């Protein structure tokens, strides 16, 4: 989806905040949000890293920005757990109000709705028997796709022509896996793009390399 998360090349963010001595977690709740989210993903909601990333993208743009990185992890955990019927909608806010002494009723227990979906193997990499459709050195065009759901094809390369630099390990397709439709394991290619093709003749001169799935590409030579 064309969401706030797709930040590549967007402008107006200002200067970078850089603190080389920053601790891993700057407050204790951050570690707990991180750990609960990963445990939720691994054990409680269908073991699907792509669904987890998509939960992040589904946040409203202001929510995404205002909650910061580990605030987003908490919201990801809540979203995955609500999707799977482990907790009810609004359960976290209701419990939070109770913890601080407010007299509120909590939502009823939902019905468990964990996706009926078993990964074909651990992790995301898979063996694919078919030969890769594209060869190293071949020109390819990133398709102009705008799916409503999850994708790992960022806007800034869509429609652009690049060169296949390397055949990467085959892997599950995030676009279908995130929605528990199918793993759709396929080849993945490291593709290079010239900065001036992406950002115009006045841009800095550099090479951009990005890993793109077979479904994202079409031959351009």
């Amino acid at each position, binding site marked *: 989806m064309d969401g706030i998360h*797709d*930040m*590549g*090349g*967007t*402008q107006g963010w200002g*200067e970078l905040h*850089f603190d080389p001595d*920053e601790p*891993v*977690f700057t407050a204790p709740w951050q570690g*707990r949000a991180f*750990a*609960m989210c*990963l*445990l*939720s993903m691994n*054990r*409680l909601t269908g073991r699907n890293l792509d669904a987890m990333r998509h939960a*992040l993208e*589904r946040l*409203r743009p*202001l*929510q995404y920005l205002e909650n910061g990185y*580990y605030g987003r992890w*908490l919201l990801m*955990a*809540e*979203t995955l*757990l*609500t999707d799977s019927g*482990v*907790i009810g*909608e*609004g359960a*976290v806010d209701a*419990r*939070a*109000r*109770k*913890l601080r002494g407010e007299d509120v009723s909590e939502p009823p227990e939902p019905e468990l709705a964990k996706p009926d979906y078993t990964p074909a193997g651990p992790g*995301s*990499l898979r063996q694919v028997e078919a030969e890769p459709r594209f060869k190293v050195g071949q020109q390819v065009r990133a398709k102009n796709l705008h799916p409503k759901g999850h994708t*790992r094809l*960022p806007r*800034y390369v869509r429609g652009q022509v690049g060169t296949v630099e390397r055949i990467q*390990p085959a*892997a599950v397709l995030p676009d279908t896996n995130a929605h528990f439709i199918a793993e759709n394991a396929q080849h*993945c290619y490291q593709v290079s793009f010239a900065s001036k093709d992406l*950002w115009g003749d006045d*841009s*800095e001169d*550099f*090479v*951009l*390399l*990005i*890993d*793109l*799935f077979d479904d994202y590409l079409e031959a351009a030579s």
Partner: protein
Amino acid sequence: MSPVPAPSDLPVDLRTEALESILVEKGLVDPAVLDKFIKTYAEDVGPLNGAKVVAKAWTDPEYKARLMENGTAAIAELGYKGPQGECIIVLENTPTLHHLVVCTLCSCYPWPVLGLPPGWYKDPAYRARAVREPRALLAEFGLDLGPDVEIKVFDSSSEVRYMVMPERPAGSEGLSEEELIPLVTREAMTGVAKAKAPA
């Protein structure tokens, strides 16, 4: 799919405590398991792992050859593997070629060798600008690359993870593998800095 959580004006630390309270009450989460998990990523899995990989590659040409051929396997030789490390490619910086790593869509990062991503890596400014104006961005980190240095920016959009092997700094020729480790920073292994000069 259910709706995403409604925007909330409750403090995030209280909301985190609330979720833990619900999951513990349901018997789905053991706070001691969370503690162990947090300790692992706060103390054990961090950029020291990657620094050991780089220092070994600087001093052992055969190891370096294996590392460049198959990063994942050579890194696993030192015992580093796990989540976000299914396939790790090592990018070697040279006097004329500089690599920079970003994830524009989220914050993908090679956890087994670098730990969890630092704040700047997750900053929208970094994610947005690394693929559009890397030279200007690197200058804000204090790294000015000459016009003769080619820049390659890697956007981590699949499950492949990238780690930069910085150039071995001048003046470090006499140092042992152990002495080289502190010169290799997290920033150098992401490509926003060079390795530190020896003291």
